[in-house]
């Protein structure tokens, strides 16, 4: 695989994202930034639109990488561009502009969902309590529940003892569930 951006290959970017490397994420962000900005400028948009859509597209790709659902049939740049274009057309339609998808634009990307997650009432409540936790707790729970990392991996990444991570994790969950249960009665 060729080095695509900042000396990173596609695989390195994907692995970097899995390992929380900020540099890998930045490489992904820069992959098609310039071309996509030009594209948006030529298609009824401005730089602010382009930024917003590109960031949402990177979030989509990031999510797929974390969930191990990214299946590449071409380069990462092509994939990201396809996501960007999809989102851009979706946004244009949302603004009431009738646009036709160009014929060459046929990269099949299913289930792209960048709309803010719809939360149930219970989840909104839980989110409120989650926001009250300290940054360390939030990070730890996100690594564990969203990124599905094992305790050993988290311990390794944070240079901590696995027992300490386990204790910290259960302390955070306990704190959160205590607040949450109180609300539920």
């Amino acid at each position, binding site marked *: 695989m060729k080095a695509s951006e900042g000396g990173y290959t596609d695989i390195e970017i994907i692995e970097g994202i899995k390992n929380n490397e900020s540099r890998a994420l*930045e490489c992904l962000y820069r992959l098609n930034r310039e071309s996509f900005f030009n594209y948006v400028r030529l298609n009824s948009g401005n730089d602010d639109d382009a930024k917003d859509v590109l*960031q949402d597209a990177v*979030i989509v790709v990031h999510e797929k990488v974390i969930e191990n659902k990214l299946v590449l049939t071409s380069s990462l740049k092509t994939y990201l561009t396809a996501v960007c274009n999809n989102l851009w057309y979706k946004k244009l339609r949302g603004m009431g502009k009738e646009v036709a998808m160009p014929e060459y634009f046929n990269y099949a990307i299913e289930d792209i969902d960048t709309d*803010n*997650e719809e939360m149930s009432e*219970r989840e909104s409540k839980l989110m409120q309590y989650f926001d009250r936790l300290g940054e360390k707790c*939030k990070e730890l*729970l996100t690594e564990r529940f969203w990124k*599905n990392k094992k305790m050993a991996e988290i311990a390794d990444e944070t240079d901590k003892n696995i027992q300490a991570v386990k204790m910290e994790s259960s302390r955070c969950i306990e704190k959160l*569930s205590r607040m949450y249960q109180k609300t539920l009665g």
Partner: protein
Amino acid sequence: MKSEWVDQLVRYVSGRMTDEERRSFSFWMQSEQMRAEQWQVKFIAELMTVTKIFSKRKLKTDLQAFERKIELEERGEEPKKKGRFSRWWKWLVGGILILLTLLFGLFIFQERMERQRLRWMQGLDLPPMLKDGFTRLFKIPLIEIRDGRPGFVLQDTIKEMAVLEVFQVDVYLQGSGRKFSHSEQYHSYKYTGEELTLYLVERDSAVQLYRFNVKAQTSESFSKEGELIMVDKPALQGIYLFMKNDFYKIDSRATDTILSPVSDPEIALLKYYTEK
């Protein structure tokens, strides 16, 4: 929260299980143990949604930061580095500011207290005759020191003493006038060093008669207790000592302390002024 099934549950909810794992876990989910912990299953599923949204929000913030960095680069400006140093620097500056604020507050407080004290002392100009009598009687020079503030400086007295372990002086100044009854200010100092300065802080402008009550005790010989009264009345002028229920007059002309007996009419007048 049992971690052995929590990890599996996370994988189950996020759809990261293989079909085989999914079947096996679904079967286990039906078990009694699991049913007893249903709320936890729901909680984990909700927590996953919440952490996912948190992660997205954080990611968006990171990407916005990248965008700002790129824009700066495009304009040829150096992006500000947010390293440990800058954080350390912020803490240091913050700490210094807080410290300075506290010191400034303390300074202002002290200034105000000092100004108030000086205001009290305005007008406290003890008659020379009183100072002289006081010094002779108690061998403690009563002098004016520092910014014109009157006080006792006991330094010389202390130096003369052979042994000094504890030196305690109780001083109070009573105002007179028509009523000679209220104690306006009272100080008590314990002293074990080389110098002790006591300030008399207040004087009633109508005062014509002063009373000092001084108790000075050391481990050796210095011990005086009594009342020193200065009367500035036409019929009674001078410094009197009231000690052991008797009045004495201090002869201000003598070089050493001479206590002269006081006549009955004088005693009557003194009692009139001091007991009124």
